[in-house]
């Protein structure tokens, strides 16, 4: 791109070249200068709503921070998070990647016919590490209480049900690895019982209303799970749906693409209506009663907190209408929050333990384990692929 292609006989740029030069400089000054100036003048947001996080703060300036380049690394995040029109630019990138380059995904995030998701291939080594964690927990439980009925199930990522063939988590391989490492457990296969319609369009989680509605999915994850646990005959499936508000999951924010929100619905039946939910207060080491469905959580940063009040180390659900003494202990991640109420009619008590928020060695202090209890390890592909989030030794 020579700068001296079109010149007058005196060697100077002609009128058109002058226009080209002038416009080039004007555009450069406008874009670079404009963004730089706006960045200085515009107030910084307190929260990046689309990504449900606070923006990076200006790193502390100290001799140590500068000499170790910590300040410089932190500054880039600060500058990027506070960049003017950041959300519009992120949307522009997503549109460019998906519509101009026509990539199947943006950093693993995809959008297809209004359904959004993120695929992540199975990390076999990580799954085996997760299995080791489960085994440690399992050994501790069986050491104290006999005749526990042990189960394990994987919640597949919804990407595997998309027609585009995303190279996501392979639940078959996961089951095979877990079964080989955990031979004493009964492994329940949920992958054939679920479909794309069982998940929210905009979020990673499964949709409680779809799980409760046996017509979606064949024969349905709830059926498959309750049959394997042996509580299917006690299950009360007369659910009533309640609208809790609009729901835009994590993916529209991560993908930065606008999408119509979907309905957040929760299900009740007489058992759920009569049930009590108690949440462990880790500081006081006592259980505090709370709502089973938190409508204030539904209106918060993550509406999925509607179910069992979101992130909780230990939750106890008691069923006063129970016709059985059987109890269920679930080691879980967030997927079980919406599933547990549906299973409650099959048990007198359902206890949920989330090892992301409590160390496994503290668990026995907070649960009352009886002989014959059903113990279910229910983890999603995301957790199995990153077991470091579990405090399981």
């Amino acid at each position, binding site marked *: 791109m020579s700068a001296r292609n079109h010149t007058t006989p005196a060697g100077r740029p002609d009128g058109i070249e002058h226009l080209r030069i002038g416009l080039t400089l004007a555009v450069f000054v406008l874009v*670079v200068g404009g963004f730089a100036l706006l960045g200085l003048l515009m107030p910084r947001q307190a929260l990046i709503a689309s990504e449900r996080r606070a923006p990076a703060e200006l790193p502390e300036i100290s001799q140590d921070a500068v000499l170790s380049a910590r300040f410089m690394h932190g500054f880039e995040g600060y500058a990027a998070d506070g960049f003017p029109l950041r959300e519009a630019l992120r949307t522009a990138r997503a549109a460019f990647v998906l519509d101009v380059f026509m990539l199947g995904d943006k950093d693993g995030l995809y959008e297809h016919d209004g359904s959004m998701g993120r695929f992540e*291939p199975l990390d076999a080594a990580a799954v085996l590490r997760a299995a080791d964690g489960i085994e440690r927990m399992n050994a501790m439980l069986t050491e104290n209480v006999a005749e526990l009925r042990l189960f394990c199930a994987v919640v597949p990522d919804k990407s595997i049900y998309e027609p585009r063939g995303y190279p996501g988590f392979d639940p078959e*391989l996961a089951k095979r690895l877990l079964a080989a490492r955990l031979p004493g457990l009964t492994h329940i296969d949920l992958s054939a019982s679920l479909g794309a319609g069982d998940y929210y369009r905009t979020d990673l989680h499964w949709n409680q209303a779809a799980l409760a509605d046996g017509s979606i999915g064949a024969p349905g994850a709830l059926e498959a799970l309750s049959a394997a646990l042996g509580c299917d005959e006690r299950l009360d499936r007369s659910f009533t749906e309640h609208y809790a508000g609009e729901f835009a999951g994590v993916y529209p924010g991560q993908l930065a693409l606008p999408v119509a929100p979907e309905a957040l619905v929760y299900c009740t039946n007489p058992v759920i209506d009569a049930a009590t939910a108690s949440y462990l207060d880790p500081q006081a080491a006592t259980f505090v009663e709370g709502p089973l469905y938190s409508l204030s959580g539904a209106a918060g940063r993550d509406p999925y907190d509607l179910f069992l009040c979101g992130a909780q180390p230990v939750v106890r659900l008691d069923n006063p209408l129970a016709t059985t003494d059987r109890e269920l202990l679930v080691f879980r991640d967030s997927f079980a929050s919406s599933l547990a109420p549906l299973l409650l009619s099959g048990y007198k008590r359902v206890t949920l333990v989330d090892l992301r928020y409590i160390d496994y060695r503290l668990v026995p202090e907070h649960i009352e384990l009886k002989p014959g209890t059903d113990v279910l390890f229910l983890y999603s592909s995301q957790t199995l692929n990153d077991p470091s989030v579990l405090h399981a030794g």
Partner: protein
Amino acid sequence: MLFSSVTFLYWFLPAVVLLYYCVPRPRGSLLGRNLLLFVASVVFYAWGEPLYIVIMLSQACVGWLSGLLIERFRARPAAKALLVASVVVELSALLVFKYTDFFVANLNALLHTELGLLALALPLGISFYTFQILSYTIDLYRNKVRVQRNPLYFATYVTLFPQLVAGPIVRYAHIEAQLTGRRHSLVGFASGVRRFCVGLGKKVLIANTLGSLVSVAQDNVTAGTLVAPDGAVLPMGEQSLLFAALFLVAFSFQIYFDFSGYSDMALGLGRIFGFEFPENFNYPLAARSLTDFWRRWHMSMSSWFRDYVYIPLGGNRVGVLRHTTNILIVWMVTGLWHGAGWNFVCWGLFMAAFLIAEKHFLGRVLARAPAALAHLYLFVLVALSWILFESPDLGAAGATVLALVGAGSAGIAGPVSWYYLCSYAVVLVIAAVGCTSLPARCIAGITARAGRPGRLVRAVAEPLMLGALLVIVTAFVVDGSFNPFIYFRF
């Protein structure tokens, strides 16, 4: 600091350009502007390597003092001794930081010793600025340049941020006159802006996007196997021919768009500040032979090795055996320049073997072959060479070769590689066309045919396109998708 970062594009660059053009030039002196460029360059370097700035300034100091002493003792034996001493000191820094662990590891393997590794982080751009300093002292000794007595001007030359960390290797002779008497004009500035934006687009849009594909493909091909608890041997990735081919093709484009994009940005920034650096790329992937490729790829490096290693060894004005040895030596050193590892040595020797073959017989065959066949030969050869270049070890290189011949666990192709082929098809096509001169020739042809109206349309459309490019690049940068430049590690 990366060019493709918010910090550089929207904090550092506007501030430096603004200050630079505010600095007055009393009687045409560039002292003030050079001082500003030097300070800015130190900040630029220290932003990523705060402590290693000392190494770079020390090496610059040695180069400058050596220059003064070589000039002082010109035409005396001491001048040669000083040159040798200077070269040894400059190369020592490179050897210590870049090659010590390589030598120690090999010594340990050879003598079964357990000498500890230094595990030093490589100072950014050390291979580039060391070669720049050497070009000054050697050319000064050869009387090709004049001594630079002003330490600030010399330090500005060594540290000049547009080309500091990833080239092109600007010899002192190239910008000797520009340090004291460069011209600043709107024509040059606008040309620099154009070049910079194009380079930024090549790097951020094409190279980084393909970088993701390279990463996935290489991970799959070299993933190895896992022995499951039930004793079954499970492949950890899809080791297929398609994935291996995708890895090599995508990496060929990635490294070209990454490095030539950086060079474009360096040239563009240079022009913004009034400098004219030498070209570093000339559509190398469109070459018809490896000899031709190396005349077009990283030209500042290949010409450096030609002038400072190959020709002093005797070049081609010696017997066949000596000439062949010279080529092998130069390419072994070129391989080592890229990295301290046997894979780089093997890569250099691979290049040397084909260059020698082309000199003796293959070149004549290629000259007579249909152009498409010659282009295909070059592309396949270069793509295959990356197996050695980009593999972390020879085991990974072996796994890639196995997959490439269809002997991987997934055979010819699998669902994962198929997904990625479909997903990246458009980008691969854009890259394939973009690495040739076709787009530039098309634009020039259309503009020429359209005459004055065509030039007018271009005069308006081109700046608007550049603006759009800058905005979309900003979107990519703000969304946190950039990768480090590949050539930073050299």
